């Protein structure tokens, strides 16, 4: 598990890198030769854009570059679930919960409900079954909190 306590200084970015990072979080235009289109907007060459983009991926500054799908629109099941796990069982329960391939993300949070995970299944009907399986494996109740309404999703970090 990766702990988030070590503060990391934001990397020094050149103006070009900053411009690319900000512009490409808003999305590539869906046109022929899209990188050339963005490069032209930014007043740089297509090669320069692609080189910087590859370098940002290689250095881990970007976790990925590609299509961001709306999981809820792809069919299948998706939900957020939470558990209150006793401290002395936390490690074991983490392993048990993470062993389910349907668990896409799992975060520890500071609350009595201290484990929060996203379940994604190919079939919508599978969600209650997975929740039941997690409850019987861990011996703790799982609180299912599917989204009832989405008001906004726009995860961007401008630099």
């Amino acid at each position, binding site marked *: 598990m990766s702990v988030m306590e070590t503060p990391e200084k934001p990397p020094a970015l050149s103006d070009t890198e900053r411009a690319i990072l900000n512009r490409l*979080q808003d999305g590539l235009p869906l046109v022929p030769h899209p990188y050339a289109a963005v490069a032209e907007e930014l007043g740089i060459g297509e090669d320069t854009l692609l080189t910087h*983009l590859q370098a940002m991926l290689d250095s881990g500054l970007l976790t*990925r570059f*590609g299509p961001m*799908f709306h999981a809820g629109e792809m069919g299948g099941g998706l939900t957020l679930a939470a558990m209150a796990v006793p401290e002395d069982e936390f490690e074991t329960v983490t392993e048990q919960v*993470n062993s389910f391939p349907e668990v896409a*993300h799992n975060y520890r949070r500071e609350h009595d409900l201290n484990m929060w995970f996203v379940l994604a299944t190919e079939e919508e009907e599978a969600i209650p079954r997975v929740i039941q399986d997690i409850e019987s494996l861990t011996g703790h109740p799982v609180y299912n909190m599917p989204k009832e*309404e989405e008001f906004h999703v*726009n995860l961007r*970090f401008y630099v």
Partner: protein
Amino acid sequence: MSTSASTSESMTLGNLDRELIVATQQGLPLVSDPWAAVGEQIGISGDEALARFQRLQANGVLRRVAAVPNHYRLGYHFNGMTVWDVDDERVRELGRATGELPFVSHCYRRPRHLPLWPYNLFAMVHGTSRDEVESKAERIHELLGDACRGHQILYSSAILKKTGLRLQRKR
């Protein structure tokens, strides 16, 4: 940005769209004509791959093709899930307004689990310090006003798993 209520009907993906998603979910090729490169992988033309992406975006399946930064590397170390107990009569209107705040990355209405969990509105807030997350949460609090009966900020203290959402290739 669009503030859409979630649709209850999910569309079913066709096989080629599904293959297109599987082929690109790790990333779009960094070459001058990425559509041709992706099309070639699944046996369609670049024009068709592009047209399918455009259609997926129009359908709302594809949000955008974009760079996803590692937010810790950019100095955003604090991720606060702010949760609010908001009057059911007003949660839709106030949820939309909360979602429009520029620093709220995700905003959803979710079910309560009484008495343990009274919160029905979730808004994710990121910051470079706890103070920053707290002052942003205070702005949400002001917006919700007397429709809000209580709130909490749940900070994440560890990522236990992060594989992302992955479609499997159909067997």
